[in-house]
């Protein structure tokens, strides 16, 4: 039976994640996994979700967003506040229930901001859209830096630039969150990845997803075919924001304290690097790139001070090797030899690495 290319790609994506999860769980259970790597499991899940969701905007919808970390930030703070409130005010003891509700809350809040930001942003095109998303990311970070939250019984207090709140402070302006119970777990991270893949892959293979890709390939033709371009750009943007918010909540609840500085411009760029290195529009490429590049600095620890320098050089060299026409043709030839050996492993075209 001949499967559709998109189905093959979807199966590869799910397959990679499930196999990796089983292997990791085995390594953890048999205590074979190094401690440093074990600590990276949840961040890896977070960055995979971030990369896949950004790929929806950059690869599928074709718009460059440089403010993805802003949505992660909203999700992280919402998640931290929600989980603490659920515990202190409602007395919800089950950490798993709190985690799941917090992740959903983080996604919803990020989605609301996605709509608010998307309305002005998506009127712009190309590099202008990129710079405005960058600007929004920075605005979110700046504003969050001035926010104070506390829980006082059932009440949730919020103030701007005023640390004197009644009750227990949970978000303390520039000092970040305080006294949050770290409740994120690796299996929930894995479930979030599967959920993200389910949403993104199914969306792409539906009427809406095709409309999103049509607006990417040719905006004018899409309009002439009766497709409301803004609506579908918005759909991709907001879906991506929701998923980033969920990833943010998972990330935030992995630490007892974190600050808004964690979600600055560099984080947006980092996720964009995952997407581009994994292949624009290639979902399983994003998964592998996010996982490898999150571990890479750890692997390079042997090089001590030089590791980030090496990271930068590797990044430049990979970009040159995969995008320079001359080097690319050498690369393609190697790939073809590899493909002949394993006929099933056909990759999606475009910028796939």
């Amino acid at each position, binding site marked *: 039976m001949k499967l*559709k290319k998109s189905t093959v790609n979807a199966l590869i994506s799910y397959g990679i994640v499930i196999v990796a999860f089983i292997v990791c769980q085995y390594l953890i259970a048999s205590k074979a996994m190094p401690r440093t790597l074990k600590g990276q499991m949840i961040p890896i899940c977070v960055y995979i979700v971030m990369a896949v969701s950004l790929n929806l905007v950059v690869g599928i919808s074709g718009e460059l967003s440089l403010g993805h970390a802003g949505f992660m930030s909203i999700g992280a703070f919402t998640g931290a506040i929600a989980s603490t409130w659920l515990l202190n005010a409602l007395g919800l003891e089950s950490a798993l229930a709190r985690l799941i509700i917090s992740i959903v809350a983080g996604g919803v809040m990020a989605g609301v901001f996605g709509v608010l930001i998307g309305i002005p942003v998506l009127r712009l095109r190309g590099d202008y859209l990129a710079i405005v998303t960058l600007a929004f990311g920075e605005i979110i970070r700046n504003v969050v830096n001035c926010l104070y939250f506390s829980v006082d019984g059932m009440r949730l207090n919020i103030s701007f630039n005023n640390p004197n709140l009644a009750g227990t402070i949970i978000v303390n302006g520039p000092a970040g969150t305080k006294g949050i119970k770290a409740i994120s777990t690796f299996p929930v991270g894995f479930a979030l990845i599967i959920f993200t893949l*389910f*949403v993104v892959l*199914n*969306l792409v*293979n*539906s*009427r*809406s*997803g*095709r*409309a999103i*890709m*049509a607006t*990417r*390939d*040719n905006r*004018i*033709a*899409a*309009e*002439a*075919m*009766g*497709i*409301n*371009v803004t609506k579908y750009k918005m*759909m991709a943007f907001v879906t991506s924001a929701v998923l980033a918010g969920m990833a943010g909540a998972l990330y935030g609840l992995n630490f007892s304290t974190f600050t808004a500085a964690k979600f600055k411009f560099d984080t947006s760029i980092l996720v964009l690097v995952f997407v581009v290195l994994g292949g624009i*529009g290639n979902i399983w490429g994003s998964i592998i790139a996010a996982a490898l590049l999150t571990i890479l600095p750890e692997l390079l620890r042997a090089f001590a001070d030089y590791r980030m320098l090496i990271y930068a050089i590797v990044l430049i060299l990979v970009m040159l090797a995969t995008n320079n026409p001359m080097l690319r043709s050498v690369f393609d030839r190697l790939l073809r030899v590899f493909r002949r050996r394993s006929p099933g492993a056909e990759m999606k*075209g*475009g910028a796939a690495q």
Partner: protein
Amino acid sequence: MSEVRRRQPTKMVPAPSQGIIPERDLYSAPVLETRHLGIEFGGLKAVEDFNLIIGKTEIAGLIGPNGAGKTTVFNLLTKVYQPTMGTVLLNGRDTAGMNTVQANKLGIARTFQNIRLFGNMTVEDNVRIGLHNQVKYGMFTGIFRLPGYWKQEKAQHEKALELLSIFDMQDMAGYQAGSLPYGAQRRLEIVRALATNPSLLLLDEPAAGMNPHETEELMNNIIRIRDRFQIAIMLIEHDMNLVMGICEGICVLNYGRIIAKGTADEIQNNPVVIEAYLGKKKEG
């Protein structure tokens, strides 16, 4: 595809507001009527006082030298540009203030002079984009694969193949659209436009880059499409064989103004047209 090309002239009769339409269309409202349509780009009048009426099943031609404003007329009709003067009535409805999407939903579809396919998508998916507004399931049905998804996807798939079969392209359904040969890309653009279920199909140089054999086939197909879907077709074309062979009403544009309207015979013998083309018309 061994149909005899339809060469017999259609009887054209005068319609109100100075236009002419085929006699068979007298019983239905015209699909398109423009009144004093025009657009200015920074003081330059690209199209001016464009009055045209197209019958319900007419094949109309829009010809004229390069730069005469033919594609601009298409852009005005499809609302890519908003006219600075005049009115466009589509199926009797004023399109003032509408955008491209609304114009398409009202029944106007087009192809592009410089092909604009969704190059990274498959041939079938390109046609499915055309079918977009006839499929009604939403984002959540799509993501969570509710029963509506499967039913409508199947119907859409069958409809897409059926439309592709007009040009015998059903075997290419899985190919990437951008990788098709030039002629096939032009044909795919026509199928995609047809998929939006238009009442008026605008073809911008459909035969450009085709060899005489392909052009011949295209002429037959245009007539077949008109007969099968009972729609009006308006085309811009430099190939006079094609225009004179299948167009019933022809409109000649020069410097943004209509210089002649009429049947193929009338246009071929019109001294103003001959002058505008500097004898080029003899090729046809």
